[in-house]
């Protein structure tokens, strides 16, 4: 039963990974930009929520929205002022811009809040759980995060496949020059995409922070790896693949931890590398190689 428990906990953890990866996948799909700062933006989302809760006394549940709005707004600014210009220069320039952001964010956080854990408590919800059988306990909060992840991915799916704006986003991903002939300003599409992606990762970061009870400045260096791994495990361009990728990584880490407390990271990375070697197109997606 402990193994079953490990798998269940892994799936619950995977929801957050999937949510974090969705924005990364979206930005790469539409703009062909691999956002190296994605993990740091996630952590930034956690910090914004923490400040909102602790310093501004905003109810914890609402801090999620504050964080999404703030980081989403930052996404708009970064896209319009930095990435638009970088995308016009070379493939290398946007990578360097996101790299620069990934250096700036954690160090600003250290300067403002020190290296200590920035807390974000959710009270009794953090420990409440449903017992299933003798060994299996499903935490309420992890369950909420998985439901949220499924809702976010389903929402993204509906947006991209059922609305005119979503169709335009996908058309821009296919051919950024031709949409302009249809009156579509591709740069506005990029801005919209960035806002959605940044807001999503802020949500993931806030839930991640709540789950852990707090966050530290350099954790983005870890979460960025998780997000990229999930995208590649699931397969590029597949939202449901992203969910599956999150679950696979979550389970790998959680089962690894079950074997030995110092194994979760290594187990997750090794599963990722194994997928890369044996199934480079990911579980559900188009090939990364093309």
């Amino acid at each position, binding site marked *: 039963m402990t193994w079953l428990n490990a798998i269940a906990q892994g799936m619950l953890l995977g929801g957050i990974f999937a949510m974090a990866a969705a924005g990364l996948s979206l930005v790469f799909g539409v703009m062909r930009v691999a956002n190296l700062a994605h993990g740091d933006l996630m952590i930034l989302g956690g910090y914004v929520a923490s400040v909102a809760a602790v310093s501004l006394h905003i109810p914890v549940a609402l801090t999620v929205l504050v964080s999404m709005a703030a980081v989403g707004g930052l996404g708009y600014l970064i896209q319009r002022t930095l990435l638009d210009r970088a995308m016009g220069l070379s493939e290398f320039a946007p990578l360097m811009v996101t790299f620069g952001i990934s250096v700036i964010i954690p160090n600003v956080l250290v300067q403002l809040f020190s290296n200590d854990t920035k807390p974000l408590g959710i009270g009794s919800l953090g420990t409440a759980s449903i017992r299933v059988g003798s060994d299996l306990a499903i935490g309420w909060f992890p369950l909420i995060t998985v439901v949220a992840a499924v809702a976010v991915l389903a929402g993204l799916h509906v947006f991209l496949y059922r609305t005119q704006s979503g169709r335009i986003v*996908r*058309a821009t991903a*296919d051919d950024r*020059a*031709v*949409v*302009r*002939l249809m*009156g579509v*300003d591709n740069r506005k599409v990029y801005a919209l995409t960035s806002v959605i992606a940044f807001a999503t990762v802020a949500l993931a970061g806030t839930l991640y922070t709540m789950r852990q009870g707090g966050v530290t400045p350099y954790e983005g260096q870890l979460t960025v790896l998780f997000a990229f791994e999930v995208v590649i495990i699931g397969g590029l361009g597949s939202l449901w693949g992203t969910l599956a990728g999150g679950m696979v990584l979550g389970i790998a880490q959680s089962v690894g931890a079950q074997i030995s407390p110092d194994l979760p990271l290594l187990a997750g990375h090794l599963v990722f590398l194994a997928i890369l070697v044996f199934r480079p197109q990911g579980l559900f997606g188009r090939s990364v190689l093309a």
Partner: protein
Amino acid sequence: MSSPLLHLDAIDAGYGDFQALFGISLDVAEGELLALVGANGAGKSTLLRTVAGALRPFSGTVRFDGEDVTALPDIHRSRKGIGLVPEGRRLFPSLTVEENLRVGAATGRKGPWDLKKVYEMMPLVADRRTRKAARLSGGEQQAVAIGRALMGNPRLLLLDEVSLGLAPLVVEQLYTALPGIRAEGTTVVLVEQDLTRTFAVADRIACVLEGRVVLTAPAADLTREQVTAAYFGTLEVTSP
């Protein structure tokens, strides 16, 4: 004749250091169908791209409906009613046929064309509405590309080599759509290699040779020999 819908004055254009168009001046009247004739590399596609605003000319003026649109990028020109069916069709491959058409309506222009009317005119397209554009035949793709441009309700439709790489029978089918498009009052500029077809559909013909317009005249006043001569640049022809 009132002022032309499209007025080009002394257009020089090209890519980087390479100049493709030299002092092009051309008028297209509302409701007219102008065919551009010329060898590969003569600059016909460059000319259409310049009109659509996808390419900014080095110098010269583009007027649309009397307004100077030279500085206006393609995004805004399409909203004003210039629709380009680009060379090579350029559909959105991961979108379905119907989605491609719906994106075409993003110009936000009101007019006769909507999904229903496009499907009525091109039953071939209607049959494929749920299929991914990447999985269409060349002729189907071309039909969708035309339908997509029509969904934007253009006043001026620019068709770049509709027949490129397609079987004659397929091209024939595509051309049957043309009268329906013109019946809505749409002005058309098209590029076509087949002279017989050009003479059959065009009100006026402009011959482009090495980036210059060497001959423009009503189709009825021209002979095939004159056009062929202009095409190869073998005869000194001056615009009548």
